């Protein structure tokens, strides 16, 4: 029973927060259902927004996927902290001696799994809607989307916590987030676009590296600054 009174090990906090968030999501299914419905319906709207006599949907599918990732991610991540604002649940979490960066990383992991699941759904649905054949390196495509999702979630979780305690709420999130997402969209859409077009993997290595650098930088900055946001 020694560990009960000791300061909770950092890694255990990360896992506990991630599991807690995922359990809430699993029981309510509130975010996953709305996000899933969102991406399918966005696919439908995209289909009717493309005049197929002018442009082939396959050519712009990569860009559409990244935009859908961002918009559906906003719906999901934006709510992370508003859910917990009720009944002072998040204040309770902050009253524990849990390190702030561990709470942040736990939330990032939970949000990542949620958003990435939706990204996979998006790729599947768009694949059916727009007849994509996923190129020669489907694994690299999934990896590239994973790196992008991680960078997005790292920033969105940080700014989600920030906007949740402002009077403007989630409507402020795009203003803060979108300018910073430009590198992710530039490298991500290029890499996945080329992979979808069947180009060799060597052609996207540079973009993949930049996407990873973006994610690592976002995670580091988020972990370092999260404490400043949640402190009263």
């Amino acid at each position: 029973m020694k560990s009960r009174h000791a300061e909770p090990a950092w890694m255990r906090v990360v896992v506990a927060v991630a599991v807690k968030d995922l359990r809430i999501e699993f029981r309510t299914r509130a975010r996953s259902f709305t996000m899933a419905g969102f991406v399918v319906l966005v696919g439908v709207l995209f289909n009717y927004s493309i005049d197929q006599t002018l442009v082939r949907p396959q050519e712009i599918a990569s860009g559409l996927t990244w935009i859908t990732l961002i918009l559906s991610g906003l719906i999901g991540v934006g709510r992370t902290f508003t859910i917990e604002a009720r009944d002072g649940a998040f204040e309770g979490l902050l009253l524990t001696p849990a390190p702030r960066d561990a709470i942040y990383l736990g939330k990032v992991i939970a949000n990542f799994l949620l958003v990435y699941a939706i990204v996979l759904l998006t790729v599947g649905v768009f694949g059916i809607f727009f007849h994509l054949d996923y190129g020669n390196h489907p694994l690299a495509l999934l990896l590239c989307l994973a790196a992008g999702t991680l960078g997005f979630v790292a920033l969105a979780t940080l700014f989600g916590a920030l906007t949740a305690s402002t009077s403007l709420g989630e409507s402020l999130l795009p203003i803060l987030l979108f300018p910073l997402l430009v590198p992710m969209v530039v490298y991500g859409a290029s890499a996945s676009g080329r992979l979808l077009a069947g180009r060799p993997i060597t052609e996207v290595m540079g973009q993949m590296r930049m996407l990873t650098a973006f994610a690592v930088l976002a995670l580091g900055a988020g972990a370092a600054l999260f404490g400043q946001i949640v402190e009263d």
Partner: protein
Amino acid sequence: MKGRTGWIGVALALAGVAMSLVTLWLVFFRVGTDFRQGIVQRIFYLHVPAAWVAFMAFGIVALASAVYLWLGDERADMAALSAAEGGMVFTAIVLTSGPLWGKIAWGTYWTWEPRLTLTLLLGFIYVGYMMVRRATESPERGKRFAAVVGIIGAINIPLIHMSVYWFRSLHPDPVVLKPDGPTLDADMLQTLLVGLVAFTLLFTGLMILRYRVERARHALDIREAT
């Protein structure tokens, strides 16, 4: 105007205004006309110094924000806010003078020229910085939030810069007339340098004066609270 910083601010701002007038005189009466671009090139002497100040101001915002989060010193936050407001003004100058020049030199108000894009995004990061400050119940929290936005923005700007340049290399723009060679005529360089000094002085002076306003407001808040 009590205290030394006030007079320094006034002196710098006045020197900036005087130098700006000198810059205008040089631009309109002294410097030679660019033989390829013609008269429109003269906007360059205001545009480039404004861009330099806009980015320098953001550097100050980020540094002062980091100091504020680190030491919790109110003065650092006031400096960051003053630099951000000044920076926004000069960003606005860049974003109006750039497209005006572009319309004549490139034939379009807007292209995805990387520096133009970067400045637009910088402007939006400034907007986010200002909005966050005013959107919290406790002003202290708003300052911390703004500092976080300022720091993350500064970390991200080099990445944005790299990515928009890289994107540009994918799409060479056919209408672009390459604006400036690396070699600039001596009188052009001179005018540009005068402009740079003028805008830097103007910005520094205005920032100091703005800082003093913020400090006076802070002192008033404390007096009213007690």
